């Protein structure tokens, strides 16, 4: 077992990172958090599938507005990606524009979702109306809560870019932008998944 020859050099394993920058860890934290969100929606999905086989499943008609909301969220994701790419080239104003647009479209999405709820309520479709409506409200609300969290991160990133610029050598905003983009793209993908689940199944 004793292998002194190889161990005599200064070991290189382990990160030994004295100053692992906060924003670096944010990216790792975002990935882990997304894993928990995946598990959360996996649980909802399995419940949905089991409940779907019940005899009392009456599908509700989903508001058309959801398509517009979807478009807003996808556009928001694209804007953010544009801003992120601009930040890698060091283009300050394009970055700020992309990120701000992304946050704005995110707010539009949320407002649209609330408006979709109003449409349903106006039609007399409430949470307990049918299992389909129960799932619709709960899934959109849970997704919405995560969008709010994503918006907080995004707005924080936007302020950072306004205050510090996007210079690569400062490092922080670039990493932070990547982390918020990871989270935000995931939320867009998650919405597409939820939308598919409630409209197709």
């Amino acid at each position, binding site marked *: 077992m004793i292998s002194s020859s190889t*161990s005599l050099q200064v070991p290189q394993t382990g*990160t030994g*990172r004295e*100053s*692992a920058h906060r924003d670096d860890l944010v990216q790792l934290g975002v990935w882990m958090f997304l894993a928990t969100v995946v598990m*959360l929606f996996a649980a909802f999905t399995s*419940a949905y599938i089991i409940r779907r086989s*019940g005899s009392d499943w009456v599908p509700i008609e989903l508001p058309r507005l959801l398509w517009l909301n979807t478009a807003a969220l996808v556009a928001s994701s694209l804007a953010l990606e544009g801003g992120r790419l601009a930040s890698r080239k060091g283009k300050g104003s394009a970055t700020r524009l992309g990120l701000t647009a992304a946050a704005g479209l995110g707010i539009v999405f949320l407002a649209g979702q609330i408006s979709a709820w109003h449409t349903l309520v106006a039609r007399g479709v409430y949470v307990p109306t049918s299992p389909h409506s129960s799932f619709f409200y709960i899934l959109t609300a849970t997704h919405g809560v995560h969008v709010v969290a994503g918006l907080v991160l995004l707005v924080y990133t936007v302020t950072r870019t306004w205050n510090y610029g996007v210079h690569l050598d400062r490092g922080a905003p670039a990493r932070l932008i990547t982390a918020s983009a990871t989270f935000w793209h995931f939320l867009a993908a998650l919405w597409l998944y939820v939308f598919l689940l409630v409209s197709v199944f």
Partner: protein
Amino acid sequence: MAELDDAETFETEVDATVHEEARLGFVRRYIFSTDHKVIGIQYILTGLLMAVVGTLLAALIRLQLGWPAHQWTLVGRLLPGGMSDGVMTPEFYLALVTMHGTIMVFFFISYVLVSGFGNYLIPLQVGARDMAYPFLNMLSYWLALVSALVMLGSFFVTGGAAAAGWTSYPPLSAVASAVPGSGWGQTLWILSMALFIASFTMGSLNFVATIFSLRARGMAMMRMPLTVWSFFIAAIVGLLAFPPLTAAAVMLLFDRHFGTSFFLPSGLVVANQLLPHQGGSPLLWQHLFWFLGHPEVYVLILPALGIACDILPVFTRKPPFGYRIQVYCLIAVGALGMVVWGHHMFVSGMSPFSGEYFTLATMLITIPMTIFGVNMMASLWGGRLRVTTPMLFTLGVIALFGSGGLGGLFLGNATADMQLHDTYFVVGHFHFMIGGVTLLGTFAGLYFWFPKMFGRSMSELFGKVHFWLTFIPFFTVFFMQHFLGLQGMPRRYYAFTTYEYLQRTSGQNLIISIAALTLMAAQLVFIANFCWSLRKGRKAEANPWRATTLEWTVDSPPPHGNFGRALPVVHRWPYEYSLEGSDNDYTPQIVSPRQAPVTA
């Protein structure tokens, strides 16, 4: 060059934080602190206080089962709500059972063993200055405290605390008229659990991120102490297994308050009232609950095993048997633990084919678990034993882990479980495992790291008395309960006197009650020792046990930032005891290969 610059800037940063720390007021240093050590100790103290509550609840349960229908006038005066004339009411009994389980599992063991020791030890043992996200860490503790307070508060609402068992099966937990505790008590239970999960998720994120990215130079994964490994696996399992319960809790809350029917089927008639619910599935809750519930068992037990594995070498003065294999076993148990939840549901009405799958999968877990347990025993071989208090509790962990694990062979087996399911066999089994292994592991850890945490040592004499007075009654109580189960005594029974076939168990129940009350009284020895040692214990040196891991290379208690000006550099694995060619019989991880040969 760039690296050097980095290091230099960081050193100034450290100095700045240390100075800043000195300037912080009492509140920021000890109350709203972001220091992992303070947070760890906050978790431990909160958990121990919750344990006192949970223990008192257990005492009341045992009073009822040992002396059914006896009039406890004095207790009745203290608890006019639940025992107005000195005789316990069934609703109070069910609330006791539910809250004892919930408090002990989530608010004692999780807080002390996982969050408490995890927060305290991980940065110190991997060589980091703090957790990866200190602010999130502080938030995690305060959410945890609020969660505990909400749970305790539920005793004081109309209808009393939740009474549907810690598993909260609907419809009992979903229909307010089903049982008194299913009113506000149950709602608070769900809210408290949601807060707990949020808090625990923040903690787990911190554990994984810290272990992943803040290890000191040279601290390869395969040089981490098994304690850190066990926290790592437990945190990953927790991150993946807890969110589904959040989903289930949300749905249960909606079933209770917003008229949905996720878990409530059509045609329910409760208290002669037809309920409006349609088509839900009670089994769905059971699946979602146990998808969390079973991995939760491993989240709790793995750290106890990790701690035991790390204490063994210190008091045998030799490396453990099969370090790598132990790591692989932890990983295997963590992974398998995610796919066996159905063994809690053999007689629930799920498909018998699932029963066969879950039996075979559950039996697979015995393989890594057996290897793990026997390797712990084999670590004693050829060593030179020092009988100290932490070591006594560690040996107790091995014994209970073996006994409890063997009981699992009965319950994981669908055919045997048909008779034993929901009897006292189950109660005995899980008290050995998530009750006993974790309790003794907690005590082993407390006695072992107390000098590090508080700079003083606990009394060895009282510690040993505490061990003897804990192990013997504990083993008696829960070993006997296995056999009560074999005789068919169902759990969660307010009284077993109704049944002819259970009449002959009253003597055994009496013995169990006496042993259990002895066990509880014995904990006063621990409390006294703990409090006395905090103020008057012998001053502890940096490394009183002559151990090798990183936390023992710094002062007791460690300073803010843990490691002074420079982070340690790790040159060897954590079990370098009795090394030939070394002056001492222990070689800390930071000793360079020039001074002593390296084993691994």
